[in-house]
C-alpha cells in the first residue's frame, strides 16, 4: 500500500481536486483506492456526496478506539472508498498533541487497512502543523500542487527546506511537485514555470490546467473523469497519475 498526501502550505491550489481526481483515475485503472479527507472543510467528502460525519468521531480514530475500517464509506465508484471528513478535525492538532507518539498516529491507523488498498490519498488541510507532520510520517510521497506564481514558489521552497531539515521525521518521503491551475495564456505563468523548473528539475512534467471543467466538480459532485471523460483536464490528471506511478 502506497500512501500519497496532497499537500501545500498554501490553500486554494487544487489539493482536493488532485486527491479526488487522481484517486478516481487510480481506481479506474483497477487499483483499490482509499481517500482520507483530513480537511475539516470536507471538500473531498462533498465531491463524493458523502455526509461529512465520522460515526464515533475523528478523535476515536486518532486515539485508536475506532478502527479506521469502521469509518470507511464506499463511494459511487468501483474500488474507491472514502474516510469522510468530520468538522471535529479542526481539533486534530490538539488531539495529536495530547496523544503519545503523535507523529505515528495516522500511520498506525492506516496500517489497519494496508491489506485492503493499493493506494491511499490523504487530503490535508493547508498548514504546517502537528497534523501535517503526522501526515509526512505516514506518507510515501507528498503531491504538491503549485500555482506558477511568486508566492507559490516561496511556499514550495519552504516545504522543500522543511523536509531537508527534518530527515528523521520524514524518512524516505518523496516530494512530487507539479504545476496546478496553469493558464498558458499568462506570460507570468509561463515565466515562473520555466524559472521553477530550472531551479527544481524534479518537478513533474504533467501540468493541470486552470479550467472551468475542474471548477464544475462542485456542481456535479463527482470527479472530472466521471462527467468529463476525455476532456483536457481529465487527460491531464491521467498523465499526472502515469508520471507519479513512474516516480514512486
Amino acid at each position, binding site marked *: 500500500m502506497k500512501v500519497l498526501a496532497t499537500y501545500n502550505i498554501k490553500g486554494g491550489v487544487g489539493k482536493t481536486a488532485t486527491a479526488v481526481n487522481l484517486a478516481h483515475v487510480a481506481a479506474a*485503472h*483497477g487499483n483499490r483506492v482509499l481517500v482520507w479527507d483530513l480537511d475539516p472543510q470536507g471538500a473531498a467528502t462533498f465531491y463524493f*456526496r458523502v455526509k461529512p460525519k465520522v460515526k464515533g468521531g475523528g478523535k476515536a480514530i486518532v486515539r485508536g478506539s475506532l478502527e479506521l475500517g469502521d469509518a470507511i464509506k464506499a463511494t*459511487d465508484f*468501483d*474500488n474507491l*472508498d472514502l474516510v469522510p471528513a468530520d468538522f471535529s478535525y479542526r481539533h486534530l492538532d490538539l488531539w495529536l498533541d495530547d496523544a503519545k507518539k503523535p507523529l505515528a498516529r495516522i500511520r498506525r491507523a492506516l496500517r489497519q487497512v494496508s491489506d485492503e488498498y493499493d493506494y491511499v490519498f490523504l487530503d490535508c488541510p493547508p498548514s504546517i502543523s502537528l497534523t501535517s507532520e503526522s501526515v509526512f510520517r505516514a506518507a510515501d510521497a507528498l503531491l504538491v500542487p503549485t500555482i506558477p506564481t511568486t508566492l507559490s514558489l516561496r511556499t514550495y521552497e519552504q516545504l522543500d527546506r522543511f523536509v531537508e531539515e527534518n530527515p528523521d521525521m520524514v524518512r524516505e518521503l518523496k516530494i512530487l511537485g507539479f504545476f496546478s491551475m496553469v493558464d498558458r495564456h499568462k506570460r507570468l505563468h509561463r515565466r515562473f514555470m520555466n524559472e521553477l523548473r530550472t531551479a527544481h528539475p524534479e518537478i513533474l512534467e504533467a501540468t493541470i490546467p486552470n479550467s472551468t471543467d475542474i471548477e464544475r466538480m462542485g456542481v456535479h*459532485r463527482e470527479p472530472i473523469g466521471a462527467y468529463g471523460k476525455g476532456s483536457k483536464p481529465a487527460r491531464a490528471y491521467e498523465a499526472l497519475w502515469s508520471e507519479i506511478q513512474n516516480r514512486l
Partner: protein
Amino acid sequence: MGKVRRYEVTAAGDFASVLAVLTDHLGLRLLSHDEGERSWLDTSTGTLGRAETTLEFRRPTGDATPSLTWACEGRVLVSDPCVSSTPPVQASDLPATPAFARLVALVDGGELVLGPTVSSQIAVLACLDDEEKTTARVVFDRSETLDGVALPMMLEVLPLRGYEDDAAALEKKLKRSVALSASSASMKELALRGVRSGHGASSGHDSAALVPSMSAAGAWRAVFQNLSESMTRSFSGVLSGNDPEDLHAFRVAVRRIRTILQDGDDVIDPESRDRFRHEYRWLGDVTTPTRDADVHLIEFPELVATLPSSRREELAAFNDVLLRHRTDCQAAMVAELRSLRRAEFGTAWLSFLADDDSWTGCGEVADEPVLHVVLMRVNKANRQFVKSGRKISKKSPAIALHELRKEGKRLRYLLECFGPLFDEKALASILKPLRELQDVLGEFQDTEVQAHALLDLAGELASGEDHSALMAIGGVIEQLGVRGADARASFSKTFGRFDDRKVQKAFDRLEPRKKKR
C-alpha cells in the same frame, strides 16, 4: 461490508414490467441496461470460484465493445473493454491493468476455461440518499441459455460499505413491492444447471420416452427434442473447445437429427423438413474440420509410437502444425456457431419443436402408430444396406465403402433413436454386428481421410530445409495405409456376420410381442 443478497423474482410479469416497478414505484435510479451474451470463465480447477470471484466475458448486442468483468461477491473489482471479440483463453490474454495483474496471479499460469454462456438482459440500479449518493446497488438479471432455456429472473442487492443499514431498508421495501424468494444460487450457478440439465435431458446416447402406440409425429418430435437437448448440453463445451468429446457428442446429435429428418417423409411438414435438413447439413459441415483436427491430434501420438524411436523426435514440429491447424479450425467454427444464421436457425428449430400446430396433420402417416411407421423405414433401410453391402468386392472403389457406411449409419440411428419401441433382444442381436461393421467401415474411412489431411498439412513443413520431419510423416501415412488395408480386408467377414440369416431374421422380431394374460 455486507454480503450480496440474492432473490429469485417470482412476480408475474416480464423483465420490463418488473423493471418499471423498481424505477417508478421504488424510485431506484437506472444506471445501466445492457443486453447481450455473457460467458463465465474459470480455470479448469475452479480457482476463481474458490476465491469467491467471477470472471465474465460480455458481448453486448450491436456494435458495443465486449468487456471483461472480474467481480467478487457481486462487486466489480475491475471491468475493462476487450480488444478481442473472443473470450481470453490464457492469463496472458487478460488486459494489462493492476487489477487484472492480481487475477493473473490467481490464475497462476493456468488456462481459462469457458463455462456456461447465456443471453442476458441486465439492469443495474442505484438506491440514492438525500445527497443523491448511492447507498446500495440492485442488479436485475434475466437470462436464458443460448438454446432458449429461460432461467429464473434474479435480483441481487449489493450493500455498499458503510451503508449496510440502507441496504437492509431497501430489501424490506423490495420485498413489499415485488414477489421475491431468497436464493442461494448465483446466475452463474443457475446458468450452469440450465445448460447442463437442459431441463431434464440426459446424455446424447439416451433415448426419448417412446411407446409403440404414440403417433409417428409425436414420436419424431420426442426424438428431436431429446437430441436437441443433447446438442444444448454440449454447445458451450463446443465453443470453448476444451474437450473434444463435447464436439463429438454435438456432431453425433446433429447427424442423428439429420437421419431422422431424412426418414421423416410423410411424418413431418415437407417444407420444414427440407429447410432443417439443409441447415443441419450446414451445421454438420461447419464442425467437420475441427473434428478432423481433433482426431489428428488424438491419434497422432499413437501413430508416432509406431515409428522407430529415432524418427519420433523429428515429428515434434509437426505436432505444432497440428495444434495451429486445430486452433484455426476452432476459431472458424466458433465464428459460424455464433453467426446470425446459426442463431436464427436455432430459434426456428426450437419454435418448430414447441409449436403444436407444426405437428398436427403434417403428413400422410403422421397420425399412424409410430411402431408401424418406423418398422417400415427400418426394414427399407436394412434392405438397401444389405443390397449395397453385397455388391462390395475387393475391386470396389473406396467411395463405395464410404457410401455403404452412410447407409449403415442411417440404419443404426433409426434403430437407436427409436430403440425403446423395439424388442430388446432382437434389437441387441442386430446392433452388435451392425456396430462392429460400422467400426470397420469407420476405420477404413478415417485412415483415408487422415492420410490425405496429414499429407496436406505436411506441406507446411516442406518449405523448411530439414526434410527429416517430412520423411517421418511419410512413415505415419504408411502406417495409416496399413490400418486402412487391414480394415478393408476384414470387411467381408464382418459384413457376413451382419448379413447372417439369424441377424436378418431378428428384424422380423423387432416388434415387441404382446404379453400373455
